[in-house]
């Protein structure tokens, strides 16, 4: 198993300029380079825009978000299956532009409309209100099939993420973080429990798929997976349902549960590894995958597993069945769920879920938020789903804030029945 070194270059400010560069925490994004990286017959035009924390900016209809990363010269490349070969022959160093993100925003057929506010009451809820964002607006080419436009946007985002990080590889890093390989089964634990993570990936076809080494996991069995490969972008998002319940590529690159397990490794637990699973749409497939995942965790010597999902409905069933299968196999299981208890929070919290194990609350999907008007909107001029101007003062459910209910556990929202309820704005 690989030991990986994250070479961290912090980004404190960003601007658009003639040529890409990185100097003393300042990132310059070259306009012409953006155009050339997104050149594709399916795209008529792309427009790079910027959005930084604290600004009066709203990004609407966001698609995927990617953290700029690079393996450096001769390092073998990141995003295997898309930009790099799937040969696992990569160097140990991964350069990370921490504090920066590249994201696309615009209309696509199955892109449920969401938003990111860079300031105001929704800002504490999205992981991408805290990053300096390079926002790519795009126009599909006349007559181009939209799935082609979507693929062109994704490939462009990944290329841009690499190009920006490439600009920093010769700079002195702000930090170097050593990421050890997971604990090997059968080796001494020092009496600590072996805890791993199972991450379910959505597999529902065009605009509803997540890619592992460049391909959908649909039809695959659960598999043990090297977390170092996830750091290097082996998992790429292409799923545009429920904005608050999405796992953009950025959050796979910075998988929160993996990070928290690593942080406790050797203290309270042993980080036992990562299992990736598809989310089949048929009942028989769900049962098969759940049973296989439980067997795999047992075979890999897990004592416990934290299980994550993507999306809702279908995905809630996958998650519940997996937790029940793990508990039935004698493992301890915890699932991460957003609650859907209605805008007043009095309805049943889960649509479908486990009958055993335990559940971490990610907040209430239906809770309403009042957002003030903003000076500038990126990604579009109109929010169709609520029929409002993109810059207007609006009231929206938490469900619309990108990543606010992060199923990978990036957020700080939770629901409790007591103490007496207060509004989000009172605690934000």
């Amino acid at each position, binding site marked *: 198993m690989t030991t990986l070194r994250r070479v961290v270059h912090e980004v404190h400010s960003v601007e658009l300029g003639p040529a890409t560069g990185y100097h003393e925490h300042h990132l310059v994004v070259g306009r012409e380079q953006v155009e050339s990286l997104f050149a594709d017959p399916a795209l008529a035009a792309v427009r790079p825009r910027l959005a930084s924390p604290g600004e009066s900016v709203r990004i609407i209809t966001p698609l995927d978000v990617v953290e700029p990363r690079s393996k450096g010269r001769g390092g073998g490349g990141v995003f295997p299956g898309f930009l790099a070969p799937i040969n696992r022959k990569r160097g140990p160093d991964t350069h990370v532009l921490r504090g920066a993100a590249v994201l696309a925003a615009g209309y696509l057929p*199955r892109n449920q409309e969401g938003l990111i506010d860079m300031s105001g009451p929704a800002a504490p809820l999205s992981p991408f209100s805290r990053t300096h964002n390079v926002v790519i607006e795009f126009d599909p080419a006349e007559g181009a099939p939209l799935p082609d436009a979507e693929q062109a946007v994704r490939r462009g985002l990944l290329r841009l993420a690499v190009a920006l990080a490439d600009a920093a590889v010769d700079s002195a890093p702000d930090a170097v973080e050593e990421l050890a390989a997971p604990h090997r089964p059968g080796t001494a634990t020092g009496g600590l429990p072996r805890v791993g993570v199972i991450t379910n990936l959505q597999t529902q076809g065009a605009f509803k798929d997540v890619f592992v080494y460049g391909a959908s996991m649909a039809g695959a069995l659960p598999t043990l997976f090297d977390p170092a490969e996830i750091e290097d972008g082996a998992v790429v998002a292409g799923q545009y349902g429920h904005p608050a319940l999405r796992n953009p590529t950025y959050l796979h690159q910075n998988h929160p*549960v993996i990070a928290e397990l690593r942080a406790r490794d050797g203290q309270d637990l042993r980080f036992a590894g990562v299992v990736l699973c598809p989310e089949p749409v048929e009942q028989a497939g769900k049962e098969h995958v759940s049973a296989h995942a439980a067997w795999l965790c047992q075979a890999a010597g897990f004592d416990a597993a934290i299980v994550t999902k993507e999306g809702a409905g279908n995905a809630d069933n996958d998650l519940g069945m997996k937790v029940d299968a793990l508990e039935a196999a004698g493992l*301890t299981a915890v699932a991460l769920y957003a609650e859907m208890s209605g805008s007043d929070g*009095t309805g049943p919290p889960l649509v479908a879920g486990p009958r055993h194990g335990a559940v971490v609350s*990610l907040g209430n999907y239906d809770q309403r938020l009042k957002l003030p008007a903003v000076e500038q909107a990126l990604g579009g001029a109109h929010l169709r789903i609520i029929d409002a101007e993109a810059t207007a003062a609006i009231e929206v459910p938490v469900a619309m804030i990108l990543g606010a209910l992060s199923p990978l556990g990036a*957020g*700080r929202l939770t629901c409790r*029945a007591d103490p007496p*309820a207060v509004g*989000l704005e009172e605690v934000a």
Partner: protein
Amino acid sequence: MRLVHYVNQFYAGLGGEDAAGLGPQVLDGTAGPGRLLQQLLGEDHQIVATIVCGDNYAASDPAVSAELLEMARTADAELLIAGPAFGSGRYGLVCARLVAAAQAADLPAVASMHPDNPGIGEAGAAPVVAAGAVARQMRPTLERLAAAVAKLATGAPLTAEDGRVGGNARIGRLVEDRAARRAVELVLARLAGDRERTEVPVGGFDVVVPAAPVDKADAAAVALVTEGAVVPFGNPDRLESARATRWLRYPIEGVDTLVSGTWESVAGGFATTLANADPNRLLPLDAARELERDGAIGHLHGEFFSTVGNGTSVATAKRFGVEWAAELRKAGVQAAILTAT
């Protein structure tokens, strides 16, 4: 204090399912469970009138609650009581809407319902006290209700100690630790032996008991209903693509098939390309017409109901279900085919 009591047709003794279409009426004094409730209340409070309405009539249209409230006003109500509805969905929905309307109009009101009654969410901020699940628990239910009425009459708010249910809102808030860290803490606590700890109660899902099979399918009226967001092309009534707040009805009298380009799905939860190429695959009108022609079913109901299931909360979905059941029963429909996506 002058009290007005709301009960459905069954508890007023006006009939069962056959009388569920009865419109609203006012009876003098007590009726049904109101008699025992009056005894328990004693002489300080008088049930001066009982309002009765058939469940299907009342549950199928939210506007009926305004009509019922006006009748209570006309009877000079100082406090309104609704139920007990126990676990009954249509009755509970009406009780909840009525006390919500009364409270909004500054008329003190209380409903009595089982905590799992699907209508309970409609009570909004109005108080609901717990009833048993079934009418066999009438006496203890009315004892609790009488005590709650006496307390409410003094102007004091009802609390959990009075058996108040609902309103136990689970509201999102920001905490120090992100969810991934809390998941690790939770797994460690469970491994250390704390098997009860969880942030969301686990299990406790509804079990739907299937209704008995239709007795004579070849004589039955059958309706088509869907949560697949089937609407006329262009979505003229602006059904939501996710997180529905309402449902719609469309006539299909004389329509044999759903033609692509005339009907479409606006659901946000799945790729609609194939569904829109043949909307019959979401709402099987073509197949149902064939069964109708072959005499396998009596006849197809003249309209279908449509909403979107994608991201719709359980409480809202339950309400839609109760409203659909009331509508279809009122129309004499014996069976419905619900297509889901």
